[in-house]
């Protein structure tokens, strides 16, 4: 059923061979075995299948996809017993492989050995297992190794065997012990699902943020279920479990029985199941040897195939390209591998050795004791180009280029043929795409050369696809290298992104390669080179054998030009590995003070932390340090430290102002800041309700002000005390509420109640300026409408404020009569205003004309009304005219 075609088959296609070959065998692709090229140069790993039964069915699409098996590596490890009796876990996306030999041994004399290898079998780590019995190994999305122990403890190691942490899957698990474990990946991270001895499932969807969920009981479950799997549906992780022929879905709340549509009735038990990489599809294997394939929501059946083998398989996995139309799963028994698809027939492979299957996004990797292979559906573009007698544009272009290399005119014929159908750009696209799916650099080159050749005949063909494919392939070829051992396909690479690939390289400490790739792909510095360098530095600082100086220098030299380096993270690493001095040295390079401070505090370098916080300008950060210091240091040291940092000191003073007044006093005392102490007492005095205490506080303020040599403040405060005493005395004597009033208001109140003598006394005692006192008295008398007293006051002596205010105040209180009394006393300059104020137009005009002042005349004019003051206006206008002349 398999037909191997020689590589020359491709070359033999020519224009003369144009009719469709009656031989309906199809050829996919031929690859060269890199590791052992001397044995067979053109050794084919291809299975070519033809399921076109009759010519009448010829137009139907083939019911089986083409598969190819590519040898990725000949394993570099040297395993005596192969993979037998090993717990094996291999990470997807070409990740590392871990082996635990003899994991069931319990005697301390023969401890099992945990080994970690790259995909090419190069050893990464190896150490004897000293903890409990391991039930399951698995890898996280960030290449950490999870070892699930019998008691539900999960130990986490990095891929170089370094212990990172451990966590428990809960009491219930540790009590009833782990029966089976599955480690799964979802958009939320890596999860762990455990079937306990009590036949209950416990699940954690993300091990970085553990939230344990215990799933409901499965009804009728007596012993371990025949098989189970974890599904991710509707943003929730669920468990699909088979008990005999019954199938249940367990979610957070319920256990729902389900039936796969169209499952053949002869089955009495489901013995194996697997879910596709994308969680979209499900395959079930029954004890009758049937493989049922359908969607994982169990709504649709895709196909069912009889494998004719009734023994339970070792492993089953989906092998399906994204977007492929056809379901295809791989089932593995001892020494046998069967690929099942849509048709009744299956493809069988013989396996020499114990192997494991590693499901991937676009295929299945098969790892055996000696080899590492990739089984996948042949990508569309490759099929188009390499199938026998293909007339696809890509195939023709490849042919054209070959002829061109041979300097044959046939090149032109092929080209013309493509161009006639205007399919040249399609041809180029096909060649580029196919190149991406090829593992062999030579083939990649051939295809890319052909694409490049085709591009010459196209104008305006966008170059991006070609360029980025060339770049991607260079990167891929580099990481696929035996020494690196990450056998990524182009599809996987695109899915995982460059960022993640860089991370993976960093985890493997392949810093130079990671940097090369970043530079080559022109990744922005802070995402690329800088990030790698940071990881390198974090690793570097943990190297105990080198001195602080050497490491600090090495780090600073390497990282000098890199932008966006976070030295604080490196310093934290150094501190964590017990190298405080190195950490401080490294922190010096950190440009972000905000990042320096917490670590410095942690390392108890508080003075440095304080100055760094101040440097940053972030006051919140300064407060943080200050508060920390306040708790750490004794008061004296704390104050001393603040004293050397004025910014911190003033911030702390602000804090104290609102929270701790007493501390504030101590601070001022320490600095002999008498002025501020005085202010503090003054402020405190206003909070005091009792007069005695208030005066006492003011007295303290006075003392401080004198010490501060602030005579004015001292005198003023003394005045204040004097006033308070006076107010209290009067309050007691006369029952007038006075305490707290200003001097001015006190006098006003006194005058308003007729206590003129007392007001006079204050006026003299406090040396109130005459002007102000006159204003004050004038206003309060007018307020009282005590016109008699006002007149007396006006005549008492010559008014220091003149008499215009008298006029105006009277008018304000609507007493024109009184106002007129003072008009005559007003100075000549203010006469006009005074007359106008009392509404005496004639008088105003008289005064203005007398003074021959133009602007005053105008003012009067503007106030005259044309109807009543006609004559007056004429006079004014005349006077104005003469005034102007002068």
């Amino acid at each position, binding site marked *: 059923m398999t037909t191997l075609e020689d590589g020359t088959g491709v070359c033999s296609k020519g224009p003369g061979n144009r009719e469709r070959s009656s031989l309906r065998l199809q050829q996919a692709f031929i690859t060269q075995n890199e590791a052992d090229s001397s044995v067979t140069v053109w050794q084919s790993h291809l299975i070519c299948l033809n399921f076109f039964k009759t010519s009448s069915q010829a137009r139907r699409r083939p019911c089986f996809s083409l598969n190819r098996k590519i040898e990725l590596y000949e394993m570099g490890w040297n395993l005596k017993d192969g993979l037998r009796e090993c717990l094996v876990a291999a990470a997807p996306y070409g990740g590392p492989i871990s082996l635990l030999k003899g994991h069931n041994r319990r005697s301390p004399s023969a401890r099992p050995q945990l080994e970690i290898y790259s995909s090419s079998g190069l050893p990464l780590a190896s150490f004897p297992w000293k903890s409990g019995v391991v039930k399951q190994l698995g890898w996280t999305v960030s290449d950490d190794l999870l070892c699930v122990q019998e008691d539900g403890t999960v130990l986490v190691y990095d891929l170089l065997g370094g212990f990172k942490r451990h966590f428990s899957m809960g009491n219930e698990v540790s009590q009833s012990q782990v029966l089976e474990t599955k480690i799964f990946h979802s958009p939320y991270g890596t999860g762990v699902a455990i079937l306990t001895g009590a036949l209950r499932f416990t699940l954690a969807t993300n091990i970085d943020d553990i939230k344990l969920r215990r799933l409901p009981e499965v009804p009728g479950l007596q012993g371990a279920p025949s098989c189970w799997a974890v599904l991710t549906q509707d943003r929730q992780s669920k468990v699909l479990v088979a008990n005999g022929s019954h199938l249940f879905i367990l979610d957070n709340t319920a256990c729902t029985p389900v039936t796969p549509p169209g499952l053949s009735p002869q089955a009495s038990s489901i013995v194996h199941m697997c879910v596709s990489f994308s969680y979209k599809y499900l395959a079930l294997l029954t004890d009758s040897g049937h493989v049922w394939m359908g969607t994982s929501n169990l709504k649709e059946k895709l196909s069912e195939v009889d494998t004719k083998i009734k023994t339970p398989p070792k492993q089953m996995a989906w092998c399906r390209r994204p977007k492929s139309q056809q379901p295809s799963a791989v089932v593995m028994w001892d020494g046998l591998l069967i690929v099942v698809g849509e048709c009744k027939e299956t493809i069988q492979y013989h396996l020499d050795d114990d192997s494991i299957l590693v499901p991937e996004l676009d295929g299945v990797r098969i790892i055996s004791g000696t080899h590492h292979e990739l089984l996948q559906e042949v990508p569309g573009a490759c099929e188009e180009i390499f199938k026998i007698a293909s007339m696809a544009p890509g195939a023709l272009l490849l042919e054209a280029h070959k002829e061109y290399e041979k300097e044959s005119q046939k090149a032109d014929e092929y080209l013309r043929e493509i161009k006639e159908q205007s399919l040249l750009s399609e041809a180029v696209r096909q060649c580029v795409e196919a190149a991406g799916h090829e593992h062999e650099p030579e083939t990649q080159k051939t295809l890319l050369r052909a694409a490049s050749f085709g591009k010459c005949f196209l104008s305006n063909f966008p170059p991006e696809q070609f360029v980025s494919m060339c770049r991607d392939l260079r990167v891929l070829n580099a990481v696929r290298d035996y020494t690196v051992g990450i056998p990524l396909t182009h599809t996987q690479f695109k899915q995982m992104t460059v960022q993640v690939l860089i991370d993976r390289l960093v985890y493997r400490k392949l810093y130079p390669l990671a940097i090369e790739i970043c530079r080559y792909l022109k990744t922005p510095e802070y995402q690329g080179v800088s990030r790698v360098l940071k990881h390198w530095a974090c690793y570097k600082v943990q190297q105990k054998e080198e001195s602080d100086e050497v490491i600090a220098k090495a780090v600073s030299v390497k990282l000098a030009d890199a932008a*966006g380096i976070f030295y604080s993270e490196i310093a934290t690493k150094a501190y964590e590995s017990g190298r405080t001095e190195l950490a401080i040295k490294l922190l010096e390079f950190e*440009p972000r003070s905000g990042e320096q401070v917490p670590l410095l505090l942690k390392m108890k370098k508080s003075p440095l932390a304080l100055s760094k916080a101040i440097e*940053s300008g972030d006051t*919140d950060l300064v*407060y943080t340090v200050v508060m920390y210091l306040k708790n750490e240091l004794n008061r004296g040291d704390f104050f001393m430290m603040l004293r050397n940092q004025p910014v911190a000191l003033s*911030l702390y003073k602000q804090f104290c102002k609102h*929270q701790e007044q007493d501390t504030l006093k101590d601070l001022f005392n320490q600095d002999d800041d008498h002025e501020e102490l005085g202010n503090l007492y003054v402020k405190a005095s*206003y909070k005091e309700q009792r007069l005695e205490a208030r005066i006492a506080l003011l007295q303290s303020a006075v003392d401080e002000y004198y010490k501060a040599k602030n005579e004015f403040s001292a005198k003023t405060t003394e005045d204040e005390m004097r006033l308070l005493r006076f107010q209290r005395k009067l309050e007691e004597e006369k029952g007038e509420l006075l305490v707290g009033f200003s*001097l001015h208001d006190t006098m006003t109140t006194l005058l308003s109640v007729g206590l003129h003598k007392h007001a006079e006394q204050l006026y003299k005692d406090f040396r109130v300026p005459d002007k102000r006192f006159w204003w004050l008295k004038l206003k309060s008398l007018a307020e009282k409408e005590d016109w008699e007293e006002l007149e007396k006051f006006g005549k008492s002596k010559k008014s220091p*404020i003149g008499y215009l205010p008298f006029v105006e105040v009277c008018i304000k209180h609507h007493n024109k009569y009184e106002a007129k009394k003072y008009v005559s006393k007003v100075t000549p300059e203010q006469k006009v205003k005074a007359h106008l104020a009392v509404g005496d137009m004639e008088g105003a005009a008289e005064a203005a004309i007398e003074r021959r002042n133009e602007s005053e005349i105008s003012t009067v004019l503007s106030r005259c009304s044309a109807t009543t003051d006609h004559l007056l206006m004429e006079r004014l206008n005349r006077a104005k005219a003469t005034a102007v002349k002068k």
Partner: protein
Amino acid sequence: ICFALLCHRTKLILILECQATKTCRKYVDLATNTDNANVKVLIDPKQFSRNEANGIIIIDKLQPRDFHILFVPRRSLLCEQRLKEKGVLNSFTNIDEYILDLIPYDGDLLSMESESSFRECYLENDQTSLYHAAKGLMTLQALYGTIPQIFGKGECARHVANMMLRMKREFAGSQTQILPVFDTLLLLDRNVDLLTPLATQLTYEGLIDEIFGITNGYVKLPPEKFAQKKQGEGGKELPTEPKKLQLNSAEELYAEIRDKNFNAVGAALSKKAKIISAAFEERHNAKTVGEIKQFVSQLPHMQAARSSLANHTSIAELIKDITTSEDFFDSLTVEQEFMTGVDTDKVSTYIEDCIAQKDPLIKILRLVCMQSVCNNGLKQKVLDYYKKEILQTYGYKHILTLKNLERVGLLKPQSTMRNNYPTIRKTLKLWMEDANEQNPNDISYVYSGYAPLSVRLTQVLARPGWRSIEEVLKMLPGPHFEERQQVPTGLHKKRQPGENRTILVFFLGGVTYAEIAALRFLSNMEDSGTEYIIAATKLINGTSWIKSLMDSPEENLP
């Protein structure tokens, strides 16, 4: 904006603004009054740490509601620690920050609305707001590209520039590739120009702010003038609620008159009135159906314009009542005398009289400070006299306020140094005798003669450059500096001929509406070649500014 409460009502988020000073009790009240399971508390860390004592305990009692805490403008470790000490940190379902640095107020205006920024920087030596300013500028640069040139004058400006350069190093490597929008950043300390905010603003918007106070773009006006005049009802039911109006350039008429000198507003309003009534008259000319349709389609716009005109006419009347009063005239005269240097070294009779009549304290303080600033300090005798007068009249408690004013340099005794204000005034042409209010040709129109010092500095920087006024710059406090920031290659702006330069002017410590008007005037000048975008820690006027510096101990009484 300081305090706001977010309530989740289905998907609608309501922001209720509270008075900053009423703080905790108020938001807790709001919290109890909402029926929602989710209550978000927006907290200004500073305000919070001051008032936490009476707020948080109440919150605790309100369990089992879901409380989320959002720090504004930035997360504060100090505050979190306080919450922890009070044992309520765990009561919050969610703790997050709502970064609010620069809030756009208008097309060309950004404000941090950090009320006490000036007080903190100059009085309390707390540079938190400067840190936020620098952060805000970094955000601005992340969005609009690195600003290649930074100029600055003053201690705070230096500090902000240093932090910016530092942060730039911190973010190195993660810069976005954006073509710079701003060519220059000018950082100005408020204490470089203490005079301008003290003077009474004479632009329309400035006067609205001086008289009624604009808060967060809104003004509250006495309602009488806005009463709907209905015939027959004889004004029985006058509205008692103050009329609240939003003021920004989205309103066509306001955009036109806001920056005019108030003396030119009347003419502008009457011109507008004529245009609008002419537009309404159009309807008589509309003969065909098409013409009528066109007229009708314009109706909403015309009606909006008419109501906007009515509003502003009313406001202008309110203002005119005040500006034509003798008091206003007298105090303006004194201000202008001070600014021109008349009798600044003697006790002013006008101030004396005002104190004697116990005019509002802030008015007195504004005038005294102004005299001190214009005289580069007052003679000790004069200063002590003023101080004594103020303390005797308004109460001894104001001694702390006076000390604050002295500390920030608004009041000071004359030193042995010569009064350099006249030199500054002459060199920078701060006083223009013939200020044209109707059709201004110089920024001095905004104060009817006085050209704001800060804006003059900005103007000189644009042309011919600060080198020409080196001497004057030395007289002003604080260092002046120039920094350059490397712009990634390929992002150097190639200016087309005739394309304007854009300068971002950042006022550290606040900006007045008159200064904004002056800068807008410069932007609009035909041959200026420069466009100004304005940013500030806060929009201030003399009154709010002095108020922020006052220390009245009574407030602390329970």
